[in-house]
């Protein structure tokens, strides 16, 4: 059974998803953070694979990536940590990572090991569609992984169709021109963009991401998309996790409900 599809079937709106960086704030925090997010009511989680040069990320996620790398996180370690994740986590899990570390690990090995841990989907922000079709698609299909692509305010209608055709799972609507950790606009142009995406009758559900940091932002985008992904906001809260423990995560997640 595909966990992502059944999530969107069971819950058509206000899907609350979080992004956390693997191995952050401490190397062994990955699994406890996932558990705390699920327990507090998260519907889906993206696990970020840290990279030395995260081009699409703002300072908060950059910093978490650098800390995770210094902690010793890498793909072999991540798959070790996630080996039994499905004994405890039932919600959809997505791996998000830049292409280069995945290439070094090996495309088919990466897909195989991700699937073996029970990962449901992948987001690779710098993977071109052509290369996906050529070198990835047969692997993701063979291992039953969904492939999630991003659309932005500058994605043309034609390109949007192409992305919708290529995607499995859902489509990731980047809220604005920017890296992660910005804020969402309430200007007419943003409104026009969100409405445009909503009205396209896409085959796939849409999740909004980038710049959603509180309930107001969440509600704003949920008027147009099936749900939203909260990243930098959570990472900021996780800085306090070693000192304060699971309650900081619970409070943060519940502030969106």
């Amino acid at each position, binding site marked *: 059974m595909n966990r992502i599809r059944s999530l969107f079937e069971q819950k058509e709106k206000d899907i609350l998803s979080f992004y956390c960086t693997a191995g952050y704030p401490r190397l062994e925090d990955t699994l406890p953070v996932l558990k705390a997010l699920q327990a507090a009511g998260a519907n889906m989680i993206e696990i970020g694979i840290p990279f*030395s040069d995260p081009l*699409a990320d703002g300072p908060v996620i950059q910093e978490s990536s650098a800390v995770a790398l210094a902690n010793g996180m890498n793909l072999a370690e991540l798959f070790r940590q996630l080996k039994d994740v499905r004994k405890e986590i039932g919600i959809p899990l997505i791996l998000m990572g830049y292409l*280069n*570390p995945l*290439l*070094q690990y090996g495309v088919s090995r990466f897909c195989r090991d991700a699937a073996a841990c029970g990962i449901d989907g992948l987001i690779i922000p710098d*993977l*071109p569609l052509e290369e996906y079709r050529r070198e990835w698609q047969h692997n993701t299909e063979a291992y039953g992984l969904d492939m999630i692509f991003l659309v932005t305010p500058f*994605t*043309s209608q034609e390109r949007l169709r192409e992305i919708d055709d290529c995607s499995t799972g859902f489509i990731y609507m980047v809220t604005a021109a920017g890296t992660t950790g910005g804020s969402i606009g309430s200007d007419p142009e943003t409104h026009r963009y969100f409405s445009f995406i909503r009205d396209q009758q896409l085959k796939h559900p849409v999740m909004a991401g980038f710049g959603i940091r509180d309930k107001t932002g969440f509600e704003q985008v949920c008027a147009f998309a099936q749900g939203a992904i909260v990243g930098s906001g959570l990472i900021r809260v996780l800085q306090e996790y070693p000192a304060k423990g699971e309650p900081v995560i619970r409070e943060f997640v519940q502030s969106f409900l």
Partner: protein
Amino acid sequence: MTYAIDKNGYYGYYGGAYIPEILRANIVALKQQFLALRDDQAFNAAFFGLLKDYVGRPSPLYYASRLSERYGAKIYLKREDLNHTGSHKINNTIGQVLLAQRMGKRHILAETGAGQHGVATATVAALMDMQCTVFMGETDMARQQPNVEKMRLLGATVVPVTSGSKTLKDAANEAIRYWIHHPVDAHYVIGSVIGPDPYPAMVAHFQSVISGEIRRQLMEQEGTPFPHAVIACVGGGSNAAGAFHHFLNDKEVQLIGVEAAGKGVDSGYTAATIATGSTGVIHGSKTLLMQDSDGQIREPYSISAGLDYPGIGPLHAYLHETGRATFMQVTDEEALQAVFLLMHLEGIIPAIESAHALAALEKLSFTHAGPVVLCLSGRGDKDMDTYIREAPAALKTHLP
């Protein structure tokens, strides 16, 4: 003349455009504009007009007789150091800012290592009345201070970059992130043959004026357009790409790129990408790069800010793989010796980057009588602090 690039911007396996979706529309528009204008008469008239009257091209092809005597070969220096702003970088900058102007952009972004590309960009932005923001690693700002002041005086905003090794790679990251935030009004002028398609081909095209001139000048001075060898330093590889370009199909012309070995290829403090790198993706391009076994990009090291880069243009990865070009490695120490030798023998103070190409002369043996052309990519004004600091030791060991 172009070299084996396919319609998606690949040189063999290398190249392409590995960028976040948000920049795709920009890259597509840029490629269309470049392909439309590269053969456009009015555009080329503006481009070559500025190269002539503003930059001072053609740059001389100077027969260096004392250097020739020392190495037993006919050595010509292609004097890119005599260009306005002091290096080859301005050739590309003029081309790209003209292009940006036609695209209606008002704001020019650049990354810089040595500051030469930053100064060239700030200069052309002033000339064409555009806003200019230059990203520069803090480490580089400290070691190339005169260029930081020049950029500021020319009206550019210099943004210190504090991430990673605080050098060229990190400056390019920040420039790309800024562009992600300002995709409509800004154009990012990449300073070398790196980055997503169409940048490598576009920068090589604008720099190819170097080898076009070399052919004509050699014809006049030697009666043949073909040198025996062309030598150039390689950071990202733009002066090398420009110096090689019109010889790529002339198989008898040896092409030699020289990378910065830093403290030594195996020392862990190096920027020698061909020697120590493997295939991966950096700054939007699939190419050779320095990385660890997890695919994390390694922090490079070189005394030369302009060569202190963990990747190399995809064209060069391809030239290396096919054997069309040979790549050599030169340490900090060897480059410094070459600086003082050129000062002493020819009265020319080269940029520390260009000195890497000069130092390769020590390692090559010339049995062929044909002329050797070395691209003297820039002048050493920006490196005076380093030269003054390093002079005594280097002078003691290496000058007669």
